[in-house]
């Protein structure tokens, strides 16, 4: 397979080859890379800097590029709204976690089966199962909402969780398929052949081995659920609290500082969560003597 060549042989071969035919490694190339990197950071950090500046802006008359006065008003308002923010964050976190757990419970055996049975004929099934990731939400959301209303689940927490599970499970499934392709299904087979039951095999072998893939897919799925506005708004009917629902009126208002402060808060929380998750995974793998 080419993978072997590109990972090891390719990397070893690269140095003499590249030096023989290109200017990479010369001072000019290093300088242009550094300038490019500076531009790169500027372009991608600029929006965050704009949010940061706007969140501390006091008076900001047009056409000033920077605010005329600075103020902590937006952050003071955020601090005074802490109970409302905490309630909406708790709700968003709870339904997102519920959707990730339900998605994981459905995706784990599916990923195992798809990898285990392999072959081109499963490509269509895999494509069908991954489709919700690319279907426009509007194309199924209104129908789902009608369905939930007919089933007596309209504007409820279970409706939100099911809709979000549908929208986010493909991210878990694709990470788990990649995970199984990387680790193989032999660990689980081995445990079963040694007499472990299916539940014990899942809990003691399959899930720990797949934890990096679960964490990667789960993080993306969580982010999809946590960031969603439309599905929660539609299926929750305004009765299910969400941080995006809390954020929306501030973004639609003319007060730039408040919208910027809450956007930064929104960005900080998932990033902090991912940091905690990564630290937990590292500690877990170290404790169990596994490669992370």
């Amino acid at each position, binding site marked *: 397979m080419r993978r072997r060549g590109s990972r090891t042989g390719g990397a070893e071969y690269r140095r003499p080859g590249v030096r023989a035919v290109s200017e990479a490694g010369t001072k000019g190339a290093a300088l242009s890379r550094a300038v490019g990197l500076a531009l790169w950071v500027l372009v991608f950090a600029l929006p965050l800097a704009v949010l940061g500046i706007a969140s501390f802006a006091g008076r900001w008359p047009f056409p000033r590029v920077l605010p005329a006065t600075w103020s902590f008003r937006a952050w003071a308002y955020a601090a005074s709204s802490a109970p409302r923010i905490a309630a909406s964050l708790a709700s968003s976190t709870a339904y997102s976690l519920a959707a990730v757990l339900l998605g994981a419970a459905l995706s784990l055996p599916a990923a195992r089966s798809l990898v285990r049975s392999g072959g081109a004929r499963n490509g269509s099934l895999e494509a069908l199962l991954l489709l919700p990731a690319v279907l426009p939400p509007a194309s199924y959301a*209104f129908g789902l909402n009608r369905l939930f209303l007919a089933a007596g689940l309209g504007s409820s927490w279970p409706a939100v969780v099911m809709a979000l599970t549908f929208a986010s499970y493909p991210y878990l499934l694709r990470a788990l398929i990649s995970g199984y392709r990387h680790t193989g299904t032999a660990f689980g087979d081995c445990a079963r052949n040694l007499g472990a039951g299916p539940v014990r095999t899942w809990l003691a072998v399959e899930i720990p081995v797949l934890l990096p893939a679960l964490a990667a897919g789960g993080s993306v799925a969580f982010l999809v659920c946590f960031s969603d506005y439309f599905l929660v708004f539609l299926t929750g009917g305004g009765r299910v609290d969400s941080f995006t629902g809390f954020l929306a009126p501030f973004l639609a208002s003319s007060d730039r500082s408040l919208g910027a402060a809450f956007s930064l808060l929104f960005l900080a929380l998932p990033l902090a969560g991912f940091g905690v998750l990564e630290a937990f995974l590292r500690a877990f793998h170290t404790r169990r003597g596994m490669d992370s």
Partner: protein
Amino acid sequence: MERSEAPRAESVTAATRQPCGPVRFGTAHPAAGAAPLALFSAGLLAAGFLATLADSFGLGGPSPGAAAWGDLVRSAWTWRSLGFSAAVAAASSLVSVTLAVPLALFLHGLPRGQASLAGIYKTAVVLPHLAVGYLAVLLFSRTGLIGAALVSAGLVPGFEALPDPFAGGGGPAIVLAYVFKETPYAVLMLHASLRKLDPRLAETARMLGADRGAVFRGIVLPHLAPTLTAVAAILFLYTFGAFDLPWVLGSGDPAMLGIEVYGRYFLRDLSARPRAAALLSTAGILSFLAAFAVFGAGRSREDRLAALRGEPGASG
């Protein structure tokens, strides 16, 4: 799960012979594990689609019939909304993947330490669409930061002289916001694909006298092509029926599909609902067929499917 003695004995024999080989007992069909997810997914999709289809025929309403479908074909707003959505989706996905190619190549050429710093580009992937829309207002509105910089630098006399990206349905503003949000995702996917490209191919081509352009056209671009197709399709389909950004940035006429349907479903009387449902059914069928054509069939399906999985191309 209870197991009988005989299969267990067989499994122990199998375990002794090949302990981590296939499980020899209690085996269902290899694909059986996918059944609960397939039922959940197909069940919700089919039931949701049928509910929309039933709405389009006015079933359960005062005057059932197929009139909405006739109106749909004849109505100018249908074609305006579909055309506007397709144009915004095509522009944002094409610009995003086009920008992403040189950016991914630049990222690929960075040494490890600098590449970590360059990872800041991923923050746009984490930002929710609503916040990206808000950023677009802060930056691109005529009284936004870019307009202020141009006016204070004396390059334009006043904000009235600036083009308004929020006019005409807000198409340019929506495209700009999607490009900001989607380009980092495309960079992420293309960079993963580039890491699978054997560097010896390009190096050998250079030794044989190929210039950078020829290496790009003959080696890099063909390697990236399946991922580019998949990413462009994913971005197009997602944007085509999106709601969040058009809701923040759109001005209503013409409206993108999600907004048009939402307005007709919930903000008007019940007589508007069948036409909205017919439009939604049409968009749903078109999206499903397009997605399946890209990811479920064709010669390079496995490469495009790999991109949908979030992996680099299989051919890499």
